């Protein structure tokens, strides 16, 4: 009975602590979300790189950077198609990105697909390293969704080593505001998953 009583109190205290943490999420939550966002001072770079995902947003931001003269060449990665498309006349992500870039003012001759299909940020880092070894270039301005910038920056810089310097340009998140991530299930899921991926990446190296 004493054992149960002791465990019961630990359980109650645990619940109380969780309730206090959740109740004060407005105080600590924004910092947790904003820490994921890395925004370097935009510097003219040899290449702009649009990472795969959020295809309706990232190329638009890259278009703005191109129009501002931050780079003369726009690279984009080519995510692999995991499933056969249900609607064959609906463009896939890698077909859509160059269309959006052109519409956003990028000259077709300045749009360069990063050779090879990729599945995730690690693969994009490897493809970028191959490209830089073959084509040269000392700086890359990477466009990805804001909550993805910290992890993407780490991974890409590690994969390309000293070949070039990575700068991050965050695109707005279409699903949620990183400063208010807990207010939507998508934001909560994405931020928790991003922290798990960061821990995984740091532990595994």
């Amino acid at each position, binding site marked *: 009975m004493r054992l149960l009583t002791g465990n019961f109190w630990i359980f109650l205290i645990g619940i109380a602590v969780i309730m206090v943490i959740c109740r004060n999420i407005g105080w600590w939550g924004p910092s947790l979300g904003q820490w994921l966002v890395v925004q370097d001072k935009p510097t003219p770079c040899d290449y702009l790189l649009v990472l795969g995902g959020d295809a309706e947003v990232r190329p638009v931001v890259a278009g703005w950077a191109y129009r501002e003269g931050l780079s003369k060449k726009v690279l984009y990665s080519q995510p692999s198609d995991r499933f056969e498309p249900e609607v064959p006349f609906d463009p896939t992500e890698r077909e859509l990105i160059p269309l959006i870039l052109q519409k*956003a003012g990028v000259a077709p001759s300045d749009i360069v697909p990063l050779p090879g299909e990729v599945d995730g940020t690690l693969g994009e880092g490897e493809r970028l390293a191959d490209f830089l070894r073959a084509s040269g270039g000392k700086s890359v301005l990477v466009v990805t969704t804001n909550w993805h910038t910290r992890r993407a920056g780490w991974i890409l810089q590690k994969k390309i080593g000293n070949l070039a310097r990575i700068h991050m340009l965050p695109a707005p998140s*279409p699903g949620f505001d990183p400063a208010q991530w807990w207010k939507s299930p998508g934001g909560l899921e994405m931020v928790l998953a991003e922290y798990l991926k960061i821990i995984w990446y740091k532990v595994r190296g």
Partner: protein
Amino acid sequence: MIGRQWLIRLLLPVLVLALLLLAGKSWLSLPARSIQVHPEAAFQPSAAVTLGGYQSESRLKEWQNRFPSLKVLALEPPNRWTQEAGLRPTMRGITDYLLQKRGFQPQNIPRILLEKEYGWHPLLALGTWLESPGNETEKLLVVLDPTRLDYFQVGASAVLSLPTRARLRFDTLDHPDLGPGNWWRNRSGWKDVATGWFLGSYALLAGEGEAPNRFNPLDENGRPYWQPANPLEWVP
């Protein structure tokens, strides 16, 4: 000498494990079963609609084969900016294609236009349809992805009145990776079960959540010439 407390602490997990083993594989199916539901045999739908999911139109066709008089409806979400800009087919075009592919005649399918596709808005639209004049006796079957079941079940309790809810049943799609006998053997099965529970728990504790900002970069000339809110912070 091991004290009584330690004995209990050691024995309890062993006992629980033994019970689980005795129960056999049936307990392993519970997580997958918890995010799947089908209408009871006595339920005879007069209308059916899908809230999305891979090849969900095929499931609608199966139901129509069972109940030939079944009225199939289609929810039509608003177009995204890429669709407005002509870079992708419109939602109407995509819906028509999928319906036609599954053997329906798109021109005969009534549409329910959605102002938003976020959260429980589709359920609200279905509730409005069920309560509109002429539809008071309709029994609606809603086909959906298992990962969304808990979220929409909580939503139905929150946004639909009891009499309206009583005329609605959910029918989840079958995923090959989410079978009760095999979900734990693959990554997507674990992910789907976790997502289903997560969304359901969120809905239970916090409701549908806030709608995301709709990203529309189109300027007055229809070009996606987006600019940061404060360009001074961005321009070097």
